[in-house]
């Protein structure tokens, strides 16, 4: 074959060829037309995933939506009913929603402030031979159990840790543990690697020549940063911030361990409702609301990212 035939011809050719193969190999089973066969294969390919998604995502979600309109059974659990009472009662967890909706974005933002310089340094300033090692060192804590790392903070912030050290300097009675600050610290610590990675990936693709050109044209480092580096790294930043914020909205462990039962996130409220106060319908209502909140945040993030990407393209043109 010296040249490839045109697209249409080759696919028709391919289909006929496969038909021939089929008829040659299985003369007893040649009832299938190429189209049906194609569809069967497609169906077979997506079947396991679809079944899994349906049985374990769609059905359970339908279950909690149904439950959210029910009533609490006398001893706890679910009782069939149809009422909006659970949704009307959402206000009783206002503090939990407030904590989550305030601390999650703040935590995300602080995480960003710490992560960006590190990602920048790794992507731009570090020589390639060390880059791989240093990036891996960032990722390794992420692979270690968040549980154990957060537990280490319980010790550091407790009376035997930093407050103990501060006593030597004369500062008495410092309370660090079980405060919103402790939870914020835990959040930043736990999600830092997850924030660094997308930003790093985005910055690594940055064409150095753009930076050089900017410098050659007389721009100072700060203008180069705000005019070129930051906008071009924005996709990575958006990914990181969206990812971390969304994960934080459902966080349970960090407020539980570092908040001492005092800093309640929506995740904590949910665990309590299902595993202690046993109010399944109300818990389901909160779970449904949480999903709605997460979807809204995601849509907003995507909108902003789209808007930013769009603006960027216009500028370049």
């Amino acid at each position, binding site marked *: *074959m010296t040249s490839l035939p045109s697209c249409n011809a080759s696919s028709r050719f391919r289909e006929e060829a496969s038909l021939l193969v089929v008829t040659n190999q299985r003369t007893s089973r040649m009832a299938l037309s190429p189209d049906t066969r194609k569809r069967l294969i497609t169906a077979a390919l997506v079947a396991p995933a679809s079944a*899994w*998604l349906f*049985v374990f995502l769609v059905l359970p979600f339908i279950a909690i939506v149904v439950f959210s309109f029910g009533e609490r059974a006398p001893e706890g659990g679910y009782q069939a009913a149809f009422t909006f009472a659970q949704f009307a009662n959402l206000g009783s967890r206002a503090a939990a929603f407030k904590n989550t909706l305030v601390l999650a974005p703040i935590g995300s933002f602080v995480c960003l402030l710490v992560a960006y*310089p590190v990602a920048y340094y790794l992507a731009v300033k570090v020589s390639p031979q060390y880059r791989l090692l240093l990036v891996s060192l960032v990722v390794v804590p992420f692979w*270690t159990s968040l549980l*154990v790392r957060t*537990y280490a903070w319980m010790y550091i912030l407790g009376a035997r840790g930093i407050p103990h050290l501060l006593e030597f300097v004369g500062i008495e009675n410092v309370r660090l543990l079980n405060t919103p600050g402790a939870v914020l610290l835990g959040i930043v610590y736990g999600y830092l690697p997850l924030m660094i990675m997308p930003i790093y990936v985005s910055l690594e693709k940055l064409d150095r020549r753009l930076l050089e050109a900017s410098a050659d044209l007389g721009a100072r480092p700060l203008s180069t940063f705000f005019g070129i580096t930051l906008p071009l790294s924005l996709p990575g930043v958006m990914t990181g911030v969206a990812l971390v914020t969304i994960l934080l909205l459902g966080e349970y462990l960090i407020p539980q361990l570092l908040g001492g039962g005092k800093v309640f996130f929506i995740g904590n409220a949910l665990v309590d409702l299902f595993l202690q106060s046993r109010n399944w319908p109300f818990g389901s209502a909160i779970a449904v609301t949480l999903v709605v909140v997460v979807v809204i945040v995601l849509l907003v993030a995507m909108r902003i990212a789209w808007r930013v990407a769009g603006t960027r393209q216009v500028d370049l043109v």
Partner: protein
Amino acid sequence: MRGLVTAVYLFLYTPIALVVLFSFNAGRNASDFTGFSTQWYGKALSNTFLMEALQNSLIIALTSAALAAIFGTMAALGMERLGAKTRAVFDGLFAAAIVVPGVVIGIATLVALVEVFGFINPALAAIWPGNQPPKLTLGYGSIIAAHGLFTMALVTMIVKARIASLGRDIVEASSDLYATPLTTFRQIVLPQILPSILAGFLLAFTFSFDDFIIAFFVAGSNTTLPIYVFASIRRGVTPEINAIATMVLIASLALILIARFLMRERTTTT
């Protein structure tokens, strides 16, 4: 700037260093360092329940990651061939599986399964011939099922991105050369998407192994390692936990090194 970055690295590693340090504590307390000893490693390894939790975590993580890799890749390949509307539905479902918080997945699975078992078990007991009707309960299956959602969606996303960037001409060339679709897949497509599948598998394994909140809801009477560690924190920690954490840390490090080594080899051949 270098100072700031060093500070961040210190910030990342100090707690980990503390955990490792106290795993060698001779005293019982995880807060007073009284001497050097490796006794806790011995105790951790001979603790039947800790070892069982570790084993459970490994089995669950391997199974859910493997299933996620296989079904997710199949789905990615299949979605290519779907019409735009159906594909959009799938995209939405996979996005939901990733974005919905773990706590909600745990709760929804718990609720659904308890209700379903509430129906099925009495029905089974009624029709079962013998004295011991099988009872469906929360356990391995429920954890793997719940983990698999997120991990399968992850794999599908990764493999789909890779497939999208594949050159079509090679695939066409292969079929023009009379290769069956299966051969084309095996010899052309598969090697190219294999790194992505492996990356997905690795991510899936890590997610499942480290997951606490989903297992917390649906594990039933089984214990996974994170559940055991969490319960120990409530129960009063001995350096045994530090020992097991250090061992897991070293294992993760080793795994990463191996993975990076394997990946680097593959990328150079492309």
